[in-house]
């Protein structure tokens, strides 16, 4: 007899050693809370949408941005704001459409693909936000230079002393550093989420795809 047949035989024999749960044990279990990665992905994604939504609202409404009032009625600003809101709406819609597609009765590969696709939607939204955030910041800085009286005054003071270049360097340099720090923090956060949540999934998905090569 082949070794593998022997293994198969033994596998069947071992069924008798398996634990046996009662009807009540199983009945209790069906109402317990799931801790699957799909649930985690859903919660984290919703938190991300909230986070980014909140960031854009506080940015636009904070008192610290008083100077912002002088430019908020400009067409360019309005367009940018509408664009940001529309993107949020579209991404949330896409996210829910993809999320609903996740089903445990699909085959393993399709299930993994759909989970990854759902996650990717949120990722694209975050990257979109980073780019949008950078553009938005620079547009604001640029407009403030021309519309904000305090800033114009400061500029004139620097210019009078012949330090105009330094003025621009400081303003743009600081903005640049701020954006870089922000992007790195976001990137690290993502590495962490991926590290924790999707390591196993990515590995298994790659494994399945390799079988087909």
């Amino acid at each position, binding site marked *: 007899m082949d*070794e*593998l047949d*022997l*293994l*198969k035989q*033994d*596998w069947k*024999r*071992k*069924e008798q*050693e*398996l*634990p*046996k*749960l*009662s*009807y009540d044990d*199983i*009945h209790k*279990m*069906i109402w*317990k*809370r*799931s*801790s*699957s*990665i*799909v649930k*985690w992905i859903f919660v984290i994604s919703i938190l991300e949408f909230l986070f980014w939504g909140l960031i854009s609202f506080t940015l636009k409404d904070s008192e610290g941005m008083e100077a912002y009032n002088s430019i908020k009625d400009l067409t360019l600003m309005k367009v940018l704001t509408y664009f940001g809101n529309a993107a949020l709406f579209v991404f949330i819609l896409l996210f829910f459409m993809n999320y609903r597609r996740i*089903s*445990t*009765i*699909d*085959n*393993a*590969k*399709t*299930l*993994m693909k759909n*989970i990854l696709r759902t996650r990717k939607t949120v990722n694209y939204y975050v990257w979109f936000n980073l780019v949008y955030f950078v553009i938005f910041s620079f547009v604001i800085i640029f407009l403030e230079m021309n519309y904000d009286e305090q800033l114009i005054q400061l500029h004139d003071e620097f210019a009078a002393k012949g330090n105009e270049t330094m003025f621009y360097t400081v303003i743009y340099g600081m903005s640049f550093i701020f954006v870089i720090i922000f992007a790195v923090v976001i990137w690290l956060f993502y590495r962490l989420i991926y590290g924790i*949540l999707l390591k*196993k*999934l990515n*590995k*298994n998905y790659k*494994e*399945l795809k390799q*079988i*087909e090569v």
Partner: protein
Amino acid sequence: MNKEQEHTFVTLLEENQNIVHKICRLYTSDADAHNDLFQEITIQLWKAYPKFRGDAKFTTWMYRVALNTAITLYRKSKKKIKTQEIEPISFKIKAEEYDDQVEQQLRLMYDAIKELNDIDKALVFLYLEDRDYKDISETLGISEVNARVKMNRIKTKLRTVLNP
């Protein structure tokens, strides 16, 4: 879902719980994790039950949802306690049933299976459960030919363990 459906589901699962236990033994290495995974699979089966249509066999459907949970959805429980680790697949083999050599061979093969990656484990599991290749390919989402090729490779690997 109504009470009747609930009752049917629990009864069906109770009758076929061996399938879930076997998957738990393959994919976990201690009693806590075993129970944890069993519970998660039960929850996922129950959640997917409304989508179960009578035209497929309950067990076929179970293999798919249960394996999907073990391979993809399940996150290892944090409660894991190292000292409690038990040998998951190499259960005690009753001495009177096999001679020493066979016992040794089985142990080696079970150990080798334990070392396989999640996907290969799923293949071996379905093979040991006597599922045909059409079924294996549909459960994992790979072609039948590739399932066969991959399984043959794993078989060779297991034989190599015995005859290095």
